[in-house]
């Protein structure tokens, strides 16, 4: 027997010591609860974590949404039935927020319904374009990958403050424009431009993450498929639509789901950059929930909980649609 084999056997024996020690315990447990219940035993640690950190908060949230007062402890909160939901849904005309009892909730919902598709489309489009460029044989490819990924590593507050510094009345962008002979623009004062910059800044901050995922997807496509297409004189556009897009579809779906979830969660950058303004032009759902529940006095935890559950229902419907599309795609 060679020395290395002896060492390997000795190491194996040592490594299996703990396993041998608990074997009788496991055997006893299996005897007691039966083999069919054993998987539950192994799942127990993760299940406990999921129950404690995911399910329990959901139930607490549901409880809060049916209670009133600005007290935090559940025992101190009186049951008020569906009052919070009634207040949120009390609207003369759902398309006109000014007719709603909680107009800012509907303004935030409306803004989110415009912001999310716009931001996700821009994000995926630009990330895909960037990934395709970075997938080619360009000089300094590694450097550019780093450049595009860099904003992802920045804190959202840093991102927002940096862009505020660029976009404010006396900011860098207006400084450049003035030097070039143009009139300065108060970018964050007008609803449309503030909304545009909100989308732009969030795309800039997160695009690198999706670019990296798409780049990995692009690199997984076999080169010989492109070579065959080239031999058949297929144009770049045809190769993109007939090879790249279909083979990238599973990755694109993942990117789409991640981008939508992140977009709905958008809060910190815009809270610092625009505070939801001008007026309520960039007020999104999460900021509304935060302000109602935590930023204003007295804190209305019940209403914030009800608003977040309504948002949760919208997200659930959206996720089901995505799942359906995803299943259809994998079946096809």
């Amino acid at each position: 027997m060679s020395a290395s084999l002896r060492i390997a056997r000795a190491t194996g024996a040592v490594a299996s010591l703990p396993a041998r020690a608990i074997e009788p315990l496991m055997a006893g447990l299996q005897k007691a609860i039966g083999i069919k219940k054993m998987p539950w035993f192994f799942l127990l640690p993760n299940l406990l974590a999921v129950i404690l950190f995911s399910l329990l908060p959901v139930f607490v949230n549901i409880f809060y949404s049916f209670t009133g007062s600005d007290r935090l402890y559940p025992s101190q909160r009186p049951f008020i039935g569906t009052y919070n939901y009634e207040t949120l849904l009390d609207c003369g005309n759902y398309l006109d927020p000014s007719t709603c009892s909680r107009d800012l909730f509907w303004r935030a919902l409306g803004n989110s319904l415009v912001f999310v598709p716009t931001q996700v489309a821009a994000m995926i489009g630009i990330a895909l374009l960037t990934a395709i460029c970075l997938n080619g044989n360009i000089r300094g490819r590694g450097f550019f990958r780093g450049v595009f990924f860099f904003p992802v590593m920045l804190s959202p507050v840093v991102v927002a403050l940096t862009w505020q510094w660029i976009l404010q009345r006396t900011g860098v962008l207006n400084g450049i424009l003035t030097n070039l002979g143009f009139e300065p623009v108060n970018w964050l004062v007008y609803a449309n431009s503030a909304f545009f910059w909100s989308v732009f800044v969030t795309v800039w901050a997160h695009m690198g993450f999706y670019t990296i995922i798409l780049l990995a997807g692009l690199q997984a496509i076999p080169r010989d498929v492109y070579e065959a297409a080239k031999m058949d004189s297929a144009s770049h556009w045809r190769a993109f639509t007939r090879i790249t897009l279909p083979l990238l579809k599973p990755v694109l779906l993942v990117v789409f789901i991640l981008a939508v979830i992140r977009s709905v969660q958008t809060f910190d950058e815009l809270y610092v950059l625009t505070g939801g303004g001008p007026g309520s032009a960039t007020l999104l759902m999460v900021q509304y929930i935060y302000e109602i529940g935590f930023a204003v006095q007295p804190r209305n935890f019940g209403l914030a909980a009800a608003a977040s559950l309504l948002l949760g229902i919208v997200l659930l419907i959206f996720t089901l649609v995505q799942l359906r599309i995803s299943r259809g795609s994998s079946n096809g």
Partner: protein
Amino acid sequence: MKLSSLRLSCAFGVLMFASAPALAQEITVVCDDLGFGCNTIQPVADKFMEENPGKTVNLEIVPYQSMVESLPVQLASGEGPDAAIVTDLGGLSRYYLDLTPYVDPATFNENFEQTLQWLRGGDAESTAINGMPTSLTVNGGYVNLTLFEQAGVEVPPEGATWQEWAAATREVAEATGTEFAMEMDRSGHRFASLAISHGAELVSEDGKPVVDDGLRAAIEQFVEWHQDGTMPMDLWGAVGGATHRELFSDFLNANTVLYFGGSWTLSQMDQEVGDLFDWKVIPAPCGPSSCTVMPGGGALVAFQHTDQPELVGAFINYLAQPENLSQVLAAAVEIPAASTLIESGIEYPGASERTQEALATFIAQIPKMAPAAYRFQGWRYQRAMMNALTTRISQVLNGELDVDGALERIEQDVNLAIEAAEAQ
């Protein structure tokens, strides 16, 4: 022998462990670092610890935004520091520890009569000493005198109206090419000065929100100033929700002729503007109803959950001694809330002559404040009203609401907030 020494060691260890909480008397006080805050209290805290060996006062600096947003949530969950310097005086009253057994009640009542009431959350019958009012702050306007001089425009005298100030500063801005005539922090507290001087009550005697013609007139005037470019849209127009924002940098860079802030920025004004240009604090601009600004201030309060009430009480009592209080106030360049110090006056050795003059102007506004201003300051739901004011006025400026709609929403927002808070 060995066994007995082991037993002795164990017994000693158990004794040490059991007596540890009794020996280590330690409290944490959180505050920000502006004016009467952790930085200016530190020397007094050091002196207190020196005179009271074994007692520790940890001062933790946190941003003002944390005091406003995070502290209330911590307190609601029964957590948080032993004490803090807060500005939402009435809103957090339910968490305050009554310091009556730990301080000299007679001195406190005599010294802080009016401001102690603000800490009682509108409970007129309460006699609790819920903290020590640290300083009195006063809203007010700062003007750039150099720009006035360059423009050759007379500075409006005491008693000038808001409209006269707007006209004069516009003239100065036009003559000197300054971007804006006036700026006001995006804060419901600052706007309340304009509103109350225009006759707004904001809160009734029985603690109900009041939306009246005075408030309407103030909002209309405010909107007009934004539309004609007297005020920049950057502050009230560009930001949404209840976000607090100020553009002190505009005054520093001479981009505005008049900046409406408050007395708490005096030391910053002194340090950062210095001799860049000549400036002064102006008396409260007048409205049709009164020449008033808003009072305000902070208070050092202890919380009910503290397990060291005696130590917190002792520290607050120590800080309330005139010599200690005046030491902190002098360093902070702030107006005292204690009547004895107002009467005796405080010397601000580090402050420039201009700052001393500015302080005198601020102090001179205190007796002129309208009763509505004091009532609003002590109202438990003051923040609900201030948040509604900033949110809805910004919407008017952006065309999302008209003034009537804003007034309706302000009243509704505050009523909903009160209803939610008082749900039984």
